[in-house]
């Protein structure tokens, strides 16, 4: 009898260890896959979407936004789309976001992954607050930058004259013509992609990218001295002293004795 309980215990421990082992192996493959798909950075989300990191946590992949979209803009990622599976996205060159004033895709979201408050001003839905991405222009392939007259993107923009404007410049090559160059204003652009859809070049010269991809960052150590609000940041500024191994000694010493530099 006693012998049997001992072997039962062994069996139990062995089974648990086996379970843990298989779980660890499965977890490794599983996490590697998930890590891979969530790293696809070129995904354009519906209006009002949370930050990508929070969006992936919160989206339940129900497709209600996709069904609400009257233009069939939104798609749910299928296996093979190389996007986080089941999450909504859109391809502006195929069907852009037409920026419906009543934004049907956002209020239907059951989880708040599409956040109504982020597209609301003064208690009313406001699609111009949407921030799906930012249009960028490749001035090498944009024919307007060559001097050929084209304002397709400018005309297509639903925030005409605000998100894209055209600047005039002298064409030095001909000496008598003007460039009419489109410029995107990052603070206004919603990333709807109507410009990308309208672009006449073979592969669009203006295209929407998620902001994390299309924007740089100056860093908060640069302050615009001409901007009163920005300059206020100086009031909270405090000194940061950095001391490296070399600067710990006096300057001369560090020149004479390069220490462990070489």
């Amino acid at each position, binding site marked *: 009898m006693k012998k049997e309980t001992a072997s039962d215990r062994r069996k139990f421990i062995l089974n648990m260890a086996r379970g843990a082992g298989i779980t660890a192996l499965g977890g490794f493959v599983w996490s590697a896959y998930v890590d891979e798909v*969530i790293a696809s950075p070129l995904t354009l989300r519906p209006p009002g979407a949370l930050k990508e990191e929070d969006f992936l*946590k919160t989206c*339940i992949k129900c497709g209600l936004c996709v069904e609400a979209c009257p233009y069939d803009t939104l798609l749910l990622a299928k296996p093979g789309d190389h996007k986080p599976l089941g999450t909504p996205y859109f391809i502006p060159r195929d069907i852009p976001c037409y920026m419906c004033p009543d934004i049907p895709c956002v209020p*239907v979201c*059951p989880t708040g992954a599409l956040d109504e408050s982020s597209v609301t001003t003064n208690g009313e839905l406001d699609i111009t607050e949407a921030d799906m991405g930012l249009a960028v222009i490749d001035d090498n392939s944009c024919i307007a930058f060559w001097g050929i007259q084209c304002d397709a993107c400018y005309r297509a923009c639903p925030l005409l004259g605000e998100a894209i404007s055209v600047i005039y410049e002298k064409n030095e090559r001909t000496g008598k013509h003007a460039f009419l160059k489109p410029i995107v204003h990052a603070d206004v652009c919603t990333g709807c992609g109507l410009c990308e859809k309208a672009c006449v070049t073979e592969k669009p010269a203006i295209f929407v990218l998620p902001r994390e991809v299309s924007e740089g960052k100056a860093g908060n150590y640069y302050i615009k001295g001409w901007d009163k609000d920005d300059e206020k940041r100086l009031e909270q500024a405090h000194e940061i002293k950095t001391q490296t191994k070399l600067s710990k000694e006096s300057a001369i010493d560090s020149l004479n004795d390069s220490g462990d530099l070489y």
Partner: protein
Amino acid sequence: MQKLWNNYRYLFFRRFTQIGLLVLYFGANAWGWTILMGNLSSSLLLNVVPLSDPYAALQMLAAGAVLATDLLIGAFIITMFYLLIGGRAFCSWVCPINIVTDAAALLRRKLGVDKISKRQPASRNMRYWVLALSLILSFAMGVTAFEFISPISMLHRGIVFGLGFGWAAMLIIFLLDLFVLKNGWCGHICPLGGFYSLVGKVSLVRVHHLEENCTLCMKCKVVCPESQVLHMIGKESLPVISGECTNCARCIEVCDDEALEFSIRKLAKNKNIGE
């Protein structure tokens, strides 16, 4: 004809609800019906009632998401519903993968695969490990881990919104169930089944065995996808209390001796005490 109906009546109703739900969801996306919109992860019934997958909500919680009210209400409704009609009733009456794995199990019986390889190489408790793992991964990676690989949502979304390469996953599950492991996906691996097994531990609607009618033909054990839950067959009159029972009712309809029937948990218990 009567016998055919008797032997397949629940199967017919199950396929009817499974396919009917798919048609409603499909119609919502394709033709703008508003009866049932969304998909099995989360839906909207008649444009008013939110319904959400409580297991997905649990993963979101583990991932650190802020749970919206609609989602909580939806998950609560669904949990209550399955507490009432049997936890894994989802598996056999709603889940579209069930059609795939039932087909594999049928073919497996027809081909006599189990006669050739008797040993089952894996434990049915694996699903609870997978369940735990999904929550750990959700927590560690900040995403709903199972929702990213779930073949259930893949197939279901696939039918409503476009399948893509999802058919490959279905094929893998079919072949796994057919050749590698009997009831491999639904009975061993699927963490959603594991989750509903836990819900089912306390749910109300049960299959009840009447030992005095049993002729020990064991047809019920052959068709049962979770045959371990039928351990009392021919031994004792007991309700099937294991949460792993999917309430698919195949055992009830294949039984020619009326030794199995549906009953409500509490009544079943009282009856037992009364005897």
